[in-house]
């Protein structure tokens, strides 16, 4: 693909580099690879239709907002009863990337307990952990995906992590910080 950068369209410049991030976030939202791909495709079409109105700043945030709207529309169309329950599965976490055997820094026992603890969090809390701590979005980017203020992302995330921490305390996998 020898397209001179100066000849690339705004869509190519701003949108195409974000496809991987969009797909990771879409997987978190849809819990399914095929649905995630369809969702990103919808997002690309919407972005293409709206590229003339995009000012070129913060393309990822712009695209994540589009993705959220596309997801809501798809969800409403297909499963209206679940519109308020953006569940996220963490089943795949136990299968995912299997902890690298060479990674001495990841405590397998702690990891397994975290997977169990995540599964017990309510969906809004699990989703924010998935977006920020697993997918690596910033508070602001996660806020775009969820359609809530960054402060809400922060408070949900901090409460979710505190619950994970409490679980590790109870199971003896982390020392209690009592004086």
């Amino acid at each position: 693909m020898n397209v001179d950068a100066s000849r690339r369209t705004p869509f190519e410049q701003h949108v195409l580099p974000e496809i991987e991030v969009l797909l990771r976030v879409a997987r978190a939202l849809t819990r399914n690879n095929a649905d995630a791909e369809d969702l990103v495709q919808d997002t690309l079409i919407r972005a293409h239709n709206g590229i003339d109105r995009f000012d070129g700043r913060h393309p990822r945030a712009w695209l994540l907002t589009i993705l959220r709207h596309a997801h809501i529309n798809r969800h409403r169309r297909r499963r209206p009863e679940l519109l308020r329950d953006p569940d996220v599965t963490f089943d795949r976490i136990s299968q995912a990337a299997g902890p690298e055997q060479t990674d001495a820094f990841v405590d397998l026992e702690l990891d397994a307990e975290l997977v169990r603890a995540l599964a017990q969090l309510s969906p809004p809390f699990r989703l924010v952990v998935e977006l920020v701590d697993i997918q690596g979005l910033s508070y602001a980017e996660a806020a775009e995906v969820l359609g809530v203020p960054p402060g809400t992302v922060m408070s949900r995330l901090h409460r979710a992590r505190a619950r994970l921490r409490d679980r590790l305390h109870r199971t003896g996998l982390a020392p209690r910080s009592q004086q």
Partner: protein
Amino acid sequence: MRRFLRRLIARPAEGHGTVDCVAVGQVLQRYLDGATDAETTTLVAAHLDDCLRCGLEADTYRRIKAALAHHRQPPPPDAVQRLREFGLQLARGEGGPRPGSV
């Protein structure tokens, strides 16, 4: 954040009493996420060096974050490729097939 700073500065190094620890606890996760300003970051880092209780708390959160980040996976390369091609077709004004429609 300003109120937090005032609380820390008002009670410097007083044996890491409750005020310091409570104030640090309020910003600890933001600190670990790199979301605190420079002044707060310096104060919290100094406190964590000295306070066993808060240091353990910070270590626990660091382990949680590290374990979760370990689950980050790149998306399937074939899906990325299909979507890139689809995006290029859009950019060139071509309709293009629906990617992943198998």
